[in-house]
């Protein structure tokens, strides 16, 4: 078998990134959209860790820790907003969130 290279990790990360983007664009449940965004953040982290390992420098891993912290903060705020919206509109469906039109 050929050796595993950074490009393998890059491909894995791009696959997860693409799946996350498709999820954001096609799903209607806002919680699933948020989960898809979290998936993209994970895709970023694979890249950072793989490149960090390749460069034999740990700054990429450290960056990945910051990304995890930011993702956690975003999740907390996002879920708070979803709860606030649910109180007002009793829905988590993106199609029904349409009080304002272009």
């Amino acid at each position: 078998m050929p050796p595993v290279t950074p490009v393998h990790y890059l491909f894995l990360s791009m696959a997860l990134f693409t799946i996350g983007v498709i999820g954001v664009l096609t799903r209607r449940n806002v919680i699933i959209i948020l989960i898809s965004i979290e998936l993209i953040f994970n895709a970023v982290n694979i890249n950072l860790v793989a490149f960090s390992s390749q460069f034999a420098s740990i700054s990429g891993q450290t960056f990945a820790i910051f990304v995890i912290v930011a993702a956690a903060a975003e999740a907390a705020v996002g879920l708070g907003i979803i709860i606030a919206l649910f109180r007002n509109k009793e829905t988590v469906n993106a199609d029904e969130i349409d009080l304002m039109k272009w």
Partner: protein
Amino acid sequence: MYQALFFLFAASAVGFAINLLIQRHPIHSALSLIGVMGSLASLYLMLGAEFLAVVQVIVYAGAVMVLFVFVIMLLNADKEEPSDRSKMAKYLGLPLLFLLLAMITVVIYRQFPEDAMVQFGDFPGQTAAIGRLLFRDFLLPFEVISILILIAIIGAIVLAKKEP
């Protein structure tokens, strides 16, 4: 061995991710994301990033995803009806996008220098080095990110608390 493990965990990560995409109920999607995170944690271990693997499992898959599951239960979110858009994406979008991905990857693969093909896995444990880095080179982001967490706390309370 390394290759086999890589392909095992990479395949399971992608499998869980696709499952996340096609599940109709948010709970199933959230559980699939935990699966993705678990697979990725194993990959981090293989890349020699033990600390990150542990953080991934404890903080991300543990705490953050519990929050997700908690909110899904709280809101009692239901299954969503499949829309036309998601059907089209499933049958047409996914294969096309993977094709595009493969093409980009081949281009990048060609451009990567030969020396870049490092054998992974013999990168030594770095937990102590991460600690040093966090308190030396990355001191500023490390301190400043506490404000980010504070904002998240304020936000969650302000937005989610009941009207007085």
